[in-house]
């Protein structure tokens, strides 16, 4: 059983989880309040916030002003709402439906 015990050995390194929660950014892209776990890299969170602000500003530039947008990824969803020049951003990881197998045909 010694060999099998090795399998349960945990490495100290770890994988970044996708962030879950919400945060607000001011008009300069600074994070004001956040419910996202502290261990998620702050620079990446800041980048999401700045992307959100940029989206609202560039949309106005294209004469399509937005108050809210949702970005759908295969494993993740970002929702952002404009908030007095800044934004509130919601981060939601997606989950696979369990119990299925998948492949492709051509």
């Amino acid at each position, binding site marked *: 059983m010694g060999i099998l015990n090795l399998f349960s050995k945990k*490495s100290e390194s770890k994988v970044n989880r*996708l962030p879950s929660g919400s945060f607000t950014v001011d008009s300069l892209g600074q994070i004001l309040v956040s419910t996202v776990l502290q261990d998620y890299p702050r620079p990446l969170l800041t980048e999401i916030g700045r992307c959100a602000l940029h989206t609202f500003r560039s949309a106005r530039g294209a004469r399509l*002003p937005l*108050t809210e947008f949702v970005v759908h990824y295969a494993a993740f969803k970002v929702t952002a709402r404009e908030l007095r020049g800044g934004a509130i951003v919601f981060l939601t990881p997606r989950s696979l439906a369990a*119990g299925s197998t*998948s492949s492709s045909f051509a």
Partner: protein
Amino acid sequence: MDACYRGNDRASGYEMPARHKILLVDDDQDMLQLYRELLGRLPSQPEIHTTTSGAKAIAFLESEPFSLLISDLSMPKMDGLQVLSIVRRKFPQLRTAVLTGVVDEQFRTRAYAIGVDIFLEKPGTAQEIQLFLDCIESLLGREIQGGFRGLQSKSLVDIIQLECLSQSSSVLKVTNGVREGRIWFQEGEIIHAATQDLSGEAAFHRILSWKTGNFESLAGEPGQARTIFESHQALLLKTAQAQDEAQAPAEADSKPAGETGGPDAASKALSAISRFQGVEFVLTATTGEAKARESWGVENPEQVAAWACELLQRFEVLGERMQAGNLSQVEGFGLQNHVALVPQPDVALCVGYQRHITAEQMRDTTKKILASWAS
């Protein structure tokens, strides 16, 4: 330390025409040693290489061809998802597997979103070890036969025949772009089919007309009402006949038209899209140049095209950095109107909606538009 292990020769009577090469990545040397010993027991006697970091793994893959990459998730500097994300892009033909002790639904979802072939938890019992070995052997075997990518090279008809011949009770979920259909099997008989707007035989024929796509085999649904009563052979024959008939006039029509994908055809396609409920404007843009290709109902097409392309590119980069999987769509909601941006190969599709349309309606209509666009 990196190493190469050539398996053992216990199965001396077994000779593979070409030996597979497996690359194992794990920052834990003990684990690598253990896996090497385990994988050395595989009947196909693969050549096993090991490495302790993602960067070295990528260097290995660049220097010689491998059949399979097995990666741990938790590694310092570059984690397994980062490695797999790079590998998927650089070596799309390489089979990839995740082997991890981190039991987490989110990581499984993300790994499959990246495109790994299989996500395995580190085995803890003798039975699990055997299952792990069977999975790896199966992955390697699929490659020998030209790919399962074996199944990928088969048509949907082949897949349906397999379900019927194996007397399966299951539901085959078939997706073609944004279109989705389901075929219900009960003890090898096709009993029902449904797409977004059709059901029964009509849906079955529609699904069979899709030339490429993905399928998922879901658990059977014993309670499903039967709407199809023909044998699967009769159904498939009818479908083949219908497709032959449909193809003949289409081929005849295509000759005088010459360029079915030309500007006129594109304008007609946009005009058709504009007839969907709630659509205010439509625009397609070439993503490389951020230029409007075709538009309908847009006052400032060049500006909107540049905005759409830039935004999609920005979110694609962000998604890649976060390892969130492929970007499928951006939906924007405004006081004047709503907008959906969808990345397509080399093209960005931008659809504007009236502001009274709900998010759900917008999503449904965008799906229909994409289906119409694809066809």
